[in-house]
């Protein structure tokens, strides 16, 4: 009797499971059939060109070539794992992937991606400045076709700035501190500066440009990464000082770029440094009623060699083709089709990587910050192009964050980070 009852109760479950498996099988078969004919691309959802623009371009590609393109949009944080998982299969779910410059060495060394074909490399080198395409080079080869010229700029709330008694943004870090102190003292803002100092990659980004602002660099393409340099020490001290003086909002320690952008755009800070996507948001409602200004990121007075001396961090992204793709030619063809002057010319809300687009009058008209951007690109600093960058970054994040939260001193933090970096570097490569 009890068995009958159990059987009766389980019967619907068996039915559901059977139906589920049947549908899964049919769907898998269909996917395999589709993947055999279509080109597939993994793209980032929250930054850069908007997904709709990508979709339109994919349709154009299909129209021109007859090859359908399946687009998958994923969060930045999930992208690395998705790509790693895709690399493990014989038939990857993606042919073309959007690659952050910090993954280039990692993917290249692990043969997840193929190097850019020489004809395309030539096209890149002739049409894109080295500050950009060099970010995708590893061991003398280019592993991604440059697509997004993303980097950080310095942003000021002009209204608050005027309220604080200033008519221009700071040009040096010392001036930044002075203006922030005055603004705080004058009650313009409780915390004049808001940054993205969450214990994530964004923290390293800000540390990188600060190190650059103090005359140093973490980028060591073929050497040892040195975080115990004077510049690195001054950079971290500067960050700690801002926190201690209450010039930077402590909530920055929990904020990423998006939140930082919100805090700035909503008027809770006079100054921030962030990626270029803020330029587009500044024109959105309701921020378009506020006067903002984008300028060169200030550097230390000592490093202010010229008026255009600046320091920034790159967040470039490129298009790569999976090593296990069965449609590599088509994939490179779509990558170059997508990252083309023609496409970027139509979407000037993002800075084109192509020099020719920069020089067009149309572009200057549409992008009032183009000159600033171009000047900022001169001081761009890349994060270390190392295959184990993720481990290095994680260690550095941890130690810097400890220093920012007052758990350790800057010196101790950077020493600790250096030890971790050296340990990772000493580990045998796979």
């Amino acid at each position, binding site marked *: 009797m009890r068995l009958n009852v159990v059987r009766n109760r389980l019967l619907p479950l068996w039915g559901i499971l059977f139906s589920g498996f049947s549908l899964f099988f049919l769907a898998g078969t269909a996917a395999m059939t589709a993947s055999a004919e279509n080109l597939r691309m993994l793209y980032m959802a929250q930054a850069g060109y908007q997904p709709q623009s990508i979709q339109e371009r994919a349709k154009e590609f299909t129209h021109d070539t007859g090859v359908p393109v399946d687009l998958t949009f994923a969060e930045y944080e999930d992208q690395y794992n998705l790509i790693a998982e895709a690399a493990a299969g014989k038939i990857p779910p993606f042919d073309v992937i959007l690659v952050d410059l910090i993954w280039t060495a990692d993917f290249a060394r692990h043969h997840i991606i193929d190097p850019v074909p020489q004809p395309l490399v030539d096209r890149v080198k002739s049409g894109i400045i080295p500050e950009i395409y060099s970010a995708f080079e590893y061991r003398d080869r280019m592993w991604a076709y440059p697509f997004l010229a993303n980097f950080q700029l310095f942003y000021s709330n002009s209204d608050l700035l005027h309220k604080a008694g200033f008519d221009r943004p700071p040009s040096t870090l010392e001036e930044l501190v002075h203006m922030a102190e005055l603004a705080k003292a004058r009650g313009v*803002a*409780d*915390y004049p500066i808001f940054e993205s100092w969450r214990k994530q990659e964004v923290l390293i980004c800000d540390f990188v440009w600060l190190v650059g602002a103090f005359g140093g660099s973490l980028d060591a393409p073929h050497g040892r990464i040195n975080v115990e340099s004077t510049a690195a020490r001054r950079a971290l001290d500067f960050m700690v000082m801002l926190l201690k003086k209450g010039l930077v*909002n*402590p*909530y920055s320690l*929990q904020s990423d770029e998006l939140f930082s952008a*919100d*805090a700035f755009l*909503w*008027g*809770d800070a006079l100054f921030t440094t962030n990626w270029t996507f803020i330029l587009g948001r500044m024109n959105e409602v309701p921020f378009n009623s506020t006067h903002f200004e984008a300028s060169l990121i200030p550097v230390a007075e000592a490093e202010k060699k010229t008026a255009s001396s600046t320091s920034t961090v790159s967040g470039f992204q490129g298009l790569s083709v999976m090593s296990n793709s069965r449609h590599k030619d088509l994939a490179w063809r779509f990558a170059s089709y997508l990252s083309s002057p023609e496409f970027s010319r139509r979407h000037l809300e993002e800075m084109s990587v192509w020099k020719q687009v920069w020089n067009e009058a149309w572009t200057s008209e549409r992008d009032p910050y183009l000159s600033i951007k171009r000047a900022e690109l001169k001081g761009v600093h890349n994060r270390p192009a190392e295959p184990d960058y993720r481990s290095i970054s994680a260690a550095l994040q941890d130690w810097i964050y400890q220093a920012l939260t007052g758990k350790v001193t800057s010196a101790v933090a950077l020493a600790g980070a250096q030890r971790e970096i050296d340990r990772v570097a000493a580990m045998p490569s796979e």
Partner: protein
Amino acid sequence: MKHPLLSRVKISTKLALSIVVIVVVQALVMQAGTSRLIALTNQQYYSGQMENRLRGVSTYLSETLNDMQVKVNLLAGQKKVVDYTEYRLRNLLYRELVLFKTPLRIDSIAIFLAPDSLFLNVGDVELSNESFKRGLSDVFANERRFFVTRQELLVRLWVFSDIIKDTTVLGTIGVAVDVDRSFVNRLENNTDATVLLSIGDHIIDTWSAPPAVRVEAAQLGPSLVKSGGDRVLRGYMAGAIPLSIIGESDATAICLLDMSSALRLISRHNQLSMVFALLILVAAVLLSYLFYRMTFLTPFTRLRKAVRRISEGDFQYAIVQHSFDELGEFAGAFEQMRRSLIRRDEELSELERFNNLILENVRSGVVTVDRSERVISCNPAAIAIIGLRSGENGSRNTDGRMPGFETLPDSLATEVRAGLHQDRYVTAKEIRVGVDSKQVILSLTTSPLFARDGGNMGVIMIVVDITRERRLEEQLERSSRMAAMGEMAAGVAHQIRNPIAIMKVSAGMIQSGKDRSGYEEKNGQLTDVIVNEIDNLDHVVSNLLNFTRPIEVHRQERAVREVIDDALRLVPLYQYPDSRVDVRVHDQGVYFPLDKSLLEQVIANLVQNGLDAMPAGGTVFVRAFLRDTELWIEVEDAGTGIDEETAKQIFMPFFTTKNRGTGLGLSIVHRLVEQHGGTIDVHSRKDAGTLFRVVIRND
């Protein structure tokens, strides 16, 4: 008659009017009662509804307060709210809270880091508002979590909650709902009633009630709260509750229930009911009239006709009983009455005839005179006695056939007038009148003639011709007087004869004894005898003169005891050594009007008589006392007494049982007492003593 006009209205008309009035009154009462009942039921229903509505208002306000508290607690616990407050991300917090405003139905949000430190203002917080400052201060002092602010026309309900991170209070967040028209609108939607919020000088409502009702209701709010009842205002029922639930002591929520539709329905019902009532009234009046005509008017008219005929003397007009109802019984009773009247008429006729017969045969004259001095009646005896000249048919009629009052003899007319005008009547008064040139002695008695209602109609005069009786009495009196004079003459003769005889004998002896020896001595003795007898004769003559002399009585108030004592001094008590006199006056100080000297003679005479009646001695009792208006004096002895025959003659002059005495003592006593207007009686038994009782009236 108290209501002359009403008394002129016929009973049938009164009855008909009464029926109509009863029907109308009943209809009106029914109508009024039904209307009142419906109105009361309606009002009771609305009162119940009002109670629910007021409860709904109270519940809604309470729920609103709770809801706001939940919302503000929710906001205060939001991580972003906490973080942004902590890190002073004012604008980001603004962006977040703005997003909450609409879905949470909040009009204002504010965050304060201290009572005077506004961190965020989503809305327009009235920082300068004193009531807000006071409320906020209380919030920070943890005295209350909500309050109401008023600024000009804006009334807000604020609810607060602390923003706490770990155990640190970062500040307080308040959410506000504008207590405005939309608030009242929501309140009305929840309570299904028109609601006015009267907060201070503000009246907040949706203008759904007429302005006059709103104003009046707002004015009545506090009194409605105080009484706890409701009131109808211009077609609206108004009830109120205090808004103490939101901390406002001088604020009231007033509910208005539109009763107009119900009142219209009631009005229509009343109109319809009035029409039906009118129709029923008309039908009832018609039916009542028919019923009245059949059962009352026709029989009553018939009965009235019969009664009129009977009242006119037509006792032969029979009353037929057509029904057995009250009127039928009435007709039957009338018929019985008619028959009784016939019998009574016959009896009265017989009685009248008998009375007339009595009057005609009675020997006394009976004359009645009215107050206008008209002779109403007189019987044949009166005509015969007085000599009145009556009409042809005797004395029964009172019209011109009666004799005129002027034909009465003057003395009679005078007595009758005294009765008519002075209420002075006489009883058996003797009057001598001349009738037909003859002197007639009449005994006249007049008495008032009273009607049945007690009114004085005149005088009844009864005259009896006593001429014959008086003639006979006078004749008898003359005979008695002659006999008395004879007796008295005999007594006088006896009294005189004896001394004369003695004197004759003595004189003869003197004359014959001249020659005899001792003549001188004998002559002297005989002369003394003669002188003595002459003295006796003088005494007899004196007594006789005293007896016959007219007595004048002079009465004065005198002490009775003193009179008796003075009387006893006249008695030669020393001559009665074996006797004594015992005087007992019941009231020693009593005074009485009397002639002292006369009464002293009476008492002295009676006492001496008593002493004389007791030769062996004894006690004579003299008792005096008052009884009513009379003075009684009793003199009693225990002597030999007298027999009945002697007692009859004892007051006769010259009657005596003594060997010596003139026999005039008691006669004089009798005369003195009579002259006093009194009486004297004697009660005696042989050998048991005699009692004389003198009674003198106080006239």
